[in-house]
């Protein structure tokens, strides 16, 4: 019997197991929260070393990015992310992983056409639209004279 695409879509929906949303959210909350708590501890540490608020915040970002890149290189980040999902994706550590992982993966194509060219294949869109949005936001602020 021939089924129509609509009928088939319905069949597929019934047979395809959905993602375990509740479990995913609990993991994302716990791991994402843990990363942010770690960030706070790192911030406190840098402040104690005598850095002012602004520099301590920058140093915290750099530390988290460095840690995530290290864990990516050790192939540990993806093992945590497999369970944590958005918990490891949303914090700045996810951004670090998305740059470090293609840089590592594509080194077989050389430092220029591989590592450098592919480094931003995943993070590129975030940069383009993130910077783009900040420009729009800045222009609006200028016109509002805030």
């Amino acid at each position: 019997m021939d089924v129509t695409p609509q009928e088939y879509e319905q069949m597929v929906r019934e047979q395809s197991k959905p993602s375990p949303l509740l479990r995913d959210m609990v993991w994302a909350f716990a791991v994402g929260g843990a990363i942010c708590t770690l960030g706070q501890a790192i911030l406190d540490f840098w402040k104690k070393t005598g850095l002012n608020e602004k520099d301590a915040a920058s140093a915290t970002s750099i530390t988290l990015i460095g840690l995530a890149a290290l864990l990516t290189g050790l192939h540990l980040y993806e093992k945590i992310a497999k369970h944590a999902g958005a918990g490891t994706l949303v914090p700045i550590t996810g951004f670090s992983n998305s740059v470090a992982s293609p840089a590592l993966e594509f080194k077989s194509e050389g430092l220029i056409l591989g590592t450098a060219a592919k480094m931003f294949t995943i993070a590129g869109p975030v940069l383009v639209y993130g910077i783009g949005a900040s420009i729009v936001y800045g222009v609006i602020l200028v016109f509002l004279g805030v």
Partner: protein
Amino acid sequence: MNGKRMGMATIRLERPPRVRAWAAVGGKKEKDGPLGAEFDQVFSDTMCGEKTWEKAEVHLQKVAVGMAANKCKLPVSALDMILAGDLLGQCVASSYAARGTQVPYLGLYGACSTMAESLAIGACMVDGGFAQRVCAVASSHFCTAERQYRFPLAYGGQRTPTAQWTATAAGACILTPAADDCAPVRITHVCFGKVCDLGITDANNMGAAMAPAAYDTLRTLLSDTGTQPKDYDGIFTGDLGQVGSRLLCELFSLDHIDISTVHDDCGKLLFDSKQDVHAGGSGCGCAASVLCAHLLPRLADGRMKRIILAATGALISPTSVQQGESIPAVCHAVVLESGGKR
């Protein structure tokens, strides 16, 4: 029209070619799977001692072809033809594996259906008298497929429950003419499939995209040959996985045909559900290695008399997925029978 075609699309091989020898090689996850002990060789190192994943896949294919030829006591250079395929762009794993063999080579692309495609074309070549010793081979490698179709290995992403795991494996068969009594398995019919597309766009649900193609080819083959599922000891689809297998059985149940008692799927056989492969295995190497490690030995020693191998392939490229195209799929089927002396 000579007498080789029957019904809509099935080819009855007048002098059924034989499968003389075969070899299956796999990676670590395949070794740890239920069929691990049945592989001819497994590599614990996913790089196979090479510098890149692509070279590792070439190595898998070379080893499979070499071992299969060796079992016939032939050097690879004595083959008349190599029919090979893989998942990489421009079919490079196969071409690089065939480089240096000095054997006429045809590179095939049927995505995960490639093993059945190469076996079917090889069988036609042998039956037609165009070649006497044909090697049909297919391979895939988890790492080469991931970087081409999805994300870098170290990227922290989550796979959906319907996603499948590309096998790191290769399988090779040597086909010989009907007169070769030493060869223990015969290929009696082949059925090349049509491209089917029921509008699935989720590239993480390949089983669902491919099930209609498997249904179409199997229905055609059964109707053309006037056989029923119970006439076979097994109907093995390529890599529909859990989701696609359920959908295939459901599509047949709409025709009031129950194939669930004889149906199994190479993607479900290759890995255990505890191996975190989600809906099951996939990739050209999945059907190829399950055929060579698990199915052919059972046909050879008579544990199974007659089976259908119906390998399915999702015919997408990373570009077609990004452009939002739905996923066309194809399924090629081969009827294999136990026969001849070992």
